């Protein structure tokens, strides 16, 4: 069991809100469990697509260049938020080949914050933060707390 930096779900929620509100990702680097300034791409085979709350998870088996097999876990949004982004519980099944884009965890473990999945049929599932409602990309006046 590895211990991430201290704000697991809350940090994720904040990261998702940050993404939804289009705030600079760097605003939370010191506290979020994932390094939002970095992106990794992992190709592999789906072992499990878990459609669940508080967060869905995608588990894939990936092969390192030296041939060693690794299991990666990618944390995604809640079922409702994913559904609003066009995702579906039936999008992936074990054995599917996928390429996952994600922000890595800070401690180097094989856990990352999922941002997109390229499916074998070419479809791209995006915006793991959920469907930003109209206007969220440009926060209305007062949406961003004023710095002290």
């Amino acid at each position, binding site marked *: 069991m590895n211990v991430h930096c201290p704000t697991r779900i809350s940090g994720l929620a904040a990261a998702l809100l940050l993404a939804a509100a289009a705030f600079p990702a760097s*605003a939370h680097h010191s506290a979020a469990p994932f390094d939002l300034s970095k992106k990794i791409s992992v190709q592999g085979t789906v072992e499990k697509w878990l459609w669940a709350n508080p967060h869905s998870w995608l588990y894939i088996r990936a092969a390192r260049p030296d041939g060693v097999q690794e299991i990666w876990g990618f944390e995604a949004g809640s079922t409702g938020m994913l559904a609003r982004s066009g995702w579906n519980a039936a999008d992936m099944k074990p054995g599917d080949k996928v390429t996952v884009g994600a922000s890595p965890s800070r401690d180097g473990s094989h856990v990352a914050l999922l941002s997109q999945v390229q499916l074998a049929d070419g479809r791209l599932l995006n915006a793991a933060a959920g469907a930003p409602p109209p206007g969220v990309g440009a926060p209305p006046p007062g949406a961003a707390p004023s710095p002290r």
Partner: protein
Amino acid sequence: MIKHKALLAIALCSAMFALPAVAAEPLGSNWSDVAKLPDFFTGNWQSVTSFLDNPTNVPFTAQAEAYIAHYKPIADIPFAGANCKTPGMPIIQRLGSPLKFFYEPGMIAIYIENSSMTRFITLNGEHAARPNPTYLGDSVGHFEGDTLVVESVGFADDLLFQYGDLPGQGKGPFVLPPEAIFGPHGPNLRMVERIRLVDPDTLEDRLTIYDDTVWKQPYVSTPVQLFKRNRGEDGRPHEWVCNSANIFAFDPSTNKTIEEDPAVVLKRLQQNDNH
């Protein structure tokens, strides 16, 4: 004869005007009020502001100061732990998934997707005489123009109740639990919300908290909570069954976050699938 009828008509009319005026029922009392209410009801409302407060600069009572002197920050909120224990009001409304408003005469209900909990706000009525403790509170509301004013009392003792932020902390746009101070609330805790549309797709919820065991003056919550409207299919609420896969991230008893090796989690999930 005609003269008599005219006199009778005049007398009847005079009597009608002499009747005491019947007070109009306040907005939210009838089905016909649906068209008069501000449209809180189409689609749903997604929080776009921090779920914890920032800044927090209301002076504390001596009792609260004594508590804060020995306060140890929490790594995360119990909602991130097993069973996803609700933080209660007001934080549960702010955790990212949308709110959905419903109306019937004398009541507005708010479904909170982040927990599948629903608030029931009695319109133009009174609090329960002896409200039992709840995480959402006993709520009564009324309209002041286009603003829904909601007063809530009767809260459970173990709300996740934010006093403020730790010194030098909570300056980012989204305040995180280790940056905040949480503590017990007093027996007469009262929350007053003023909810209105800023524009057709933006709803604000201005919150003032009254607890004279914690603050020397009413606590005005900041930032003002803002919600953006989802319409159409995105505006439909979804169910929320938390921790349905027994994956959680925080142990409140040890105040430690948890990150299991994904290979271990996967093995457990696949074993469950085979049963």
